[in-house]
């Protein structure tokens, strides 16, 4: 049986179990709403466009934040890989920053940028930057020395060697870095939105929770999960697999 078929059967069974449980009142509707209520909540949300606005607002923040974090992360990674002093100093700080969830920056960000877009985007940027930095650094440091030797015998050195050989050779690490940066940025975005003003998926989740609309809470949770899985598997894992194959790191 194909994995896709297995997956379909699994999710169908899960929803069936959920529906039957709600039907026979194994749990109360206020604790876990039935799949039909969740479906209705989602349909209503999309019909009056509130969920569409939420998605657009969330993606806007994510794209801005992710783009900035990839740029800063790449630049910082190159710096750490090329300068021993930077690696010994800034590098140790990046390692420390990477190990904490970026949402802890929110109180400070709200002081600096106010309770709005700026603060959330700042948290998203911090979420993605450091994992990208560390991957770019590792990628550049792990370039096969043979490529560098070969390039030098072919008259390449300095800036040409760096951009034409070292950077392309580290692309597999750059792609993995971007995938992880996306995952961290997505988590940071949801955390940030839960704690701030709307619109946005996280904001709607908290709003629905405040008003006891559990069907919408679950609906938004499903959207967040589906978006996360789809972007990861359909975009990033596919690119990563192609790159690994082309770069001869996987047969």
């Amino acid at each position, binding site marked *: 049986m194909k994995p896709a078929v297995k997956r379909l059967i699994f999710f169908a069974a899960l929803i069936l179990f959920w529906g039957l449980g709600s039907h026979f009142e194994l749990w109360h509707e206020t604790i876990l709403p039935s799949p039909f209520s969740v479906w209705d909540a989602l349909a209503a949300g999309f019909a009056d466009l509130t969920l569409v606005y939420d998605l657009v607002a969330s993606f806007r923040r994510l794209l801005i934040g992710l783009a900035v974090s990839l740029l800063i992360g790449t630049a910082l990674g190159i710096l750490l890989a090329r300068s021993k002093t930077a690696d010994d100093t800034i590098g140790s700080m990046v390692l420390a920053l990477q190990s904490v969830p970026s949402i802890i920056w929110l109180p400070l960000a709200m002081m600096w940028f106010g309770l709005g877009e700026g603060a959330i985007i700042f948290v998203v940027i911090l979420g993605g930057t450091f994992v990208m930095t560390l991957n770019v650094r590792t990628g550049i440091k792990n370039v096969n020395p*043979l*490529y560098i*030797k*070969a*390039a*030098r*015998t*072919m*008259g*390449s*050195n300095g800036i040409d060697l760096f951009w*034409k*050989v070292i950077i*392309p*050779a580290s*692309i597999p690490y750059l792609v993995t870095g971007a995938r992880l940066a996306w995952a961290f940025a997505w988590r940071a975005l949801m955390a940030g939105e839960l704690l701030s003003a709307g619109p946005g998926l996280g904001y709607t989740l908290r709003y629905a929770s405040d008003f006891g609309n559990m069907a919408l809470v679950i609906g938004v949770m499903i959207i967040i999960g589906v978006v996360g899985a789809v972007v990861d598997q359909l975009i990033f894992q596919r690119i990563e697999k192609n790159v690994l*194959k*082309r*770069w*001869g790191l996987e*047969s």
Partner: protein
Amino acid sequence: MYLFIEIQHIDKIYTDKDNNANTVLEDINLEIPKGQFVSILGPSGCGKSTLLSMIAGLTSASSGDIVVDGATVQKPGKDRGMVFQEAALFPWMTVTENVIFPLRKDMNKKQAVERARHFLQMVQLSNYAGHYPHELSGGMQQRVSIARSLAMDPAVLLMDEPFGALDEQTRSRLHGQLEKIWIDTQKTIVFVTHSIQESIKLSDRIVVMGTRPGTVIADIEVDIPRPRDAHKQQVTALEERIMGLLKGEIDKVIDEELAYEARR
């Protein structure tokens, strides 16, 4: 005869962590005329690859000079093409893009592609111009690597056990191709190997090196007519002579070849 490569009093001493000096090469002197196919033969640890790397300009000597075509070697340059044991092709580039890599700055793209085609034809891979390295076998990759070096039109081709990682049949076929390329292009070739048979089959001259420290223990002109396969007796006689010369080193050579066979 015009001395094309002059290796003068080369020493290489590594200092390890405990400040012990390890002499890798000691007073190496060699003069190689233009167009010669020279093999440097020796067991592992004799510093033959280090010596080649110095001619390429990738490694510096502790003392002594290497002069190629009148100029002292300071750094790598396109006048010395290098083929490594692994093909060292860039995996993100197609075969053609790999071959034109060293030509980018010297000519326009069209000329470079034309030139790449010529040299890919020479190694019989013109049908694979658009393929990526991971789609080729090890032997094919090594042929692309040879084409890439030849495309720069180097004065000398340096080869560091280029066929060491290939299977026997492929190696034997590539020996034939390399011999033909050498005859057609008349390049000076310095070929590092640990295989006595390989050195006899290919070269005009065999420089035999001993180990610890690396020194030249014999310099043999090979005057067997080509193709050498047709002169089995002379080849076997020379093989035995070199075996005898290496005597003390021979156990190391055999150990290395056994280890190599075992790895395959």
